[in-house]
């Protein structure tokens, strides 16, 4: 398959681009941040996401969605990245929807997918327990009790967890932390008894939560997918999230690059436009090359999730590793080339740096994914 967007995908990109830059530009993020908006995102905007079909992008028409693929989800995510839009797209439309799609029973799908597509609920995936993304180290215990399970433990860095109506929780039903066997995913209501949530305001003014589970009771049919054998499902869902997040990072890096290029074409020192200095030219050209190479890996990862999902793990690792690293370079060069202005809150470039740091860390950083590739290749 050609590693470029087809005509319909290009149209979607144009639609998403004008919608997001019009309705949810960087200024909107500043308003949420500076207005100390308690929820940290705009419910009105999320309704519009549903009307545009973005909330249901991955959800089949039978369940009220628009039934598009991962490439299309990536197209939307890239524009989110360009505008630094704080939206539950990744947590709800991508991660939670994928968990239900790939692991849910018919009843579970019927219960939740139409609501996600309709923008009626927010979902969140609760995986990490420590400072670094290590899914197989999940320790949160789910013990069989009566007709169901009791959950005890804590999660961190749960994106949009503070407002989620539905939590998808990775738990250990057997085995030891570090083992892949013994993991199970559960659907837990965000307001279930025993769930306590602390919104963690992050450096990028996007949203996450620390969530503790204190004797939380769920029914047996709250298990999503196989009990004890949830690792494969979890990886599949995470890989979708990682690839879509790589697309978002591509947008963050691409826009950071564009605004920096505009700046160096306008600012003068030494009687010349600073973009005339060869040291800045060469670094700009190098950075452009890094971003372009990343784009190829990202679209390939998204296409592979659509066409050949069982073979997607390696290319998803490559895409996320690349997107994290090249976007990090883009924002660092961006701040540096803005000189003193790059350090000010008034200029947007610093906001791109902050978002890049969070998205780099989320769902595994570049080191994590390079390590995954090494393991897959047996070294």
């Amino acid at each position, binding site marked *: 398959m050609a590693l*470029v967007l087809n005509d319909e995908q290009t149209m979607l990109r144009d639609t998403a681009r004008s919608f997001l830059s019009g309705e949810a530009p960087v200024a909107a993020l500043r308003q949420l941040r500076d207005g100390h908006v308690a929820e940290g995102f705009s419910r009105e905007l999320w309704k519009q996401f549903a009307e545009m079909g973005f909330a249901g992008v991955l959800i089949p028409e039978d369940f009220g969605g628009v039934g598009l693929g991962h490439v299309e989800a990536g197209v939307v995510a890239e524009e989110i990245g360009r505008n630094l839009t704080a939206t539950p797209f990744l947590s709800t439309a991508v991660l939670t929807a994928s968990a239900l799609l790939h692991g849910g029973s018919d009843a579970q799908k019927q219960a939740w997918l139409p609501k996600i597509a309709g923008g009626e609920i927010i979902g969140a995936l609760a995986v990490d327990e420590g400072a670094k993304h290590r899914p197989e180290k999940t320790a949160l215990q789910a013990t069989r009790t009566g007709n169901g399970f009791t959950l005890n433990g804590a999660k961190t860095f749960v994106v949009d967890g503070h407002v989620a109506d539905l939590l998808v929780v990775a738990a250990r039903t057997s085995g030891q932390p570090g083992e892949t066997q013994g993991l199970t995913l559960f659907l837990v209501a965000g307001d279930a008894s025993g769930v306590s949530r602390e919104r963690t305001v992050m450096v990028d003014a996007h949203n996450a939560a620390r969530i503790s589970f204190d004797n939380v009771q769920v029914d047996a049919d709250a298990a999503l997918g196989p009990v004890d054998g949830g690792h494969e499902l979890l990886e599949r869902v995470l890989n979708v999230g990682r690839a879509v997040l790589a697309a978002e990072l591509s947008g963050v890096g691409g826009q950071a690059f564009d605004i920096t290029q505009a700046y160096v074409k306008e600012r003068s020192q030494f009687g010349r436009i600073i973009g005339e200095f060869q040291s800045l030219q060469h670094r700009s*050209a190098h950075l452009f090359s890094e971003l372009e*190479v*990343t784009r190829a890996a990202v679209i390939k990862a998204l296409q592979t999730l659509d066409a050949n999902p069982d073979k997607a793990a390696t290319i998803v690792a490559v895409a996320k590793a690349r997107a994290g690293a090249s976007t990090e370079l883009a924002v660092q060069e961006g701040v540096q080339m803005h000189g003193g202005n790059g350090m000010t809150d008034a200029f947007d470039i610093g906001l791109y740096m902050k978002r890049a740091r969070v998205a780099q860390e989320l769902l595994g950083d570049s080191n994590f994914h*390079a390590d995954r590739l090494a393991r897959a290749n047996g*070294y």
Partner: protein
Amino acid sequence: MADLETFRAETRAWLEANCPAEMRTPTEDEEDTVWGGRNPTFRNDAQRVWLERMGAKGWTAPEWPAAYGGGGLTREEAKILAAEMRDLGCRSPLSSFGIWMLGPALLKYGSEEQKKKYLPPIVRGEIRWCQGYSEPGAGSDLASLQTRAEDRGDHFLVNGSKIWTSYANKADWIFCLVRTDPTAPKHEGISFLLFDMASPGVSTQPILLISGSSPFCQTFFDDVKVPKDQLVGIPNKGWEIAKYLLTHERNSISSMGGRAHRPVHEVAAQHVGLDDRGELDDNLLRAQIARLEVDEIAFELAMERAGDMAKRGEIHGAYSSLLKYYGSELNKRRHEILMSSGGSDALEWESDRSEHGAAPRAWLRTKANSIEGGTSEVQLNILAKRILELPGA
């Protein structure tokens, strides 16, 4: 789609039946590369057979028109051929400046007679070409070249010298940039000329490289007579052809490294060993290799994407500079890490055990990747000016 699947099945079957077993192992040293020519050297019969079979099908130049001996494949078919060859581990049957550089330029700028005359022998590997661009005073600033071609009515008379002419002493013909109008501004007096290296007045002087081999030469032209129908395109308008050819040279240099060769982690496992967790017994080297392999996979896709963009007419003309810059720097990095992976085993220069220093010689050779075909700095200048449109570049 169904047609493409049929093509894939047929191609695979043909390759399985026709690619000799010896041609399905990774290349180890320079003698594994086949260059063809009037006096070809083959290390073994398998090399000869493989070249003849692929040449006859036109699959040494899969996307060239069949009318000129090429494979006549569409881009999608050519991708399938490449993928199947990679899958079966088939070596490239032919390395050729004719295929990488001259052919594309002739297809675009050559006359019908020139295409008919020069292209089919390139496809079959019968004529080996060299590139006469650089001169002692004209490297990065190529357009300041001084080799003169005077119009003498029925022929041109060529005088001057070229330098860094790869394989000039082994090539049959040369494509050469010459100055036909010394009074015009430097970009406007250049022509693109083809001639036989056996012509009277042509001589070559090999130059020894840091890798210990001497594949390139200084090349001298002393009153060389060249028939006028061997000028390509329009007289004094050769610079446009020269630049177009360079974009193809750059594409071929960018694809030199990477996954066609033995994976770096295998080399490291052999020399460094694995620890009891099954990881390379040098965790910082392991990290370097993992990052390299991430970048190599991504870069291979970037080349594929560039081809797809070109097919849709959505590619910038200077994109080949991006691939050339990135690919050559990546290949240099690969060989630095390979040297580290080989440790002291990779330092031997002469023993049979080391295949006469294959590793260090290859490592040193890669240093030229960011010089030949236009240096990395020149590529970055081109990107800054033409794609980023930065001022004053």
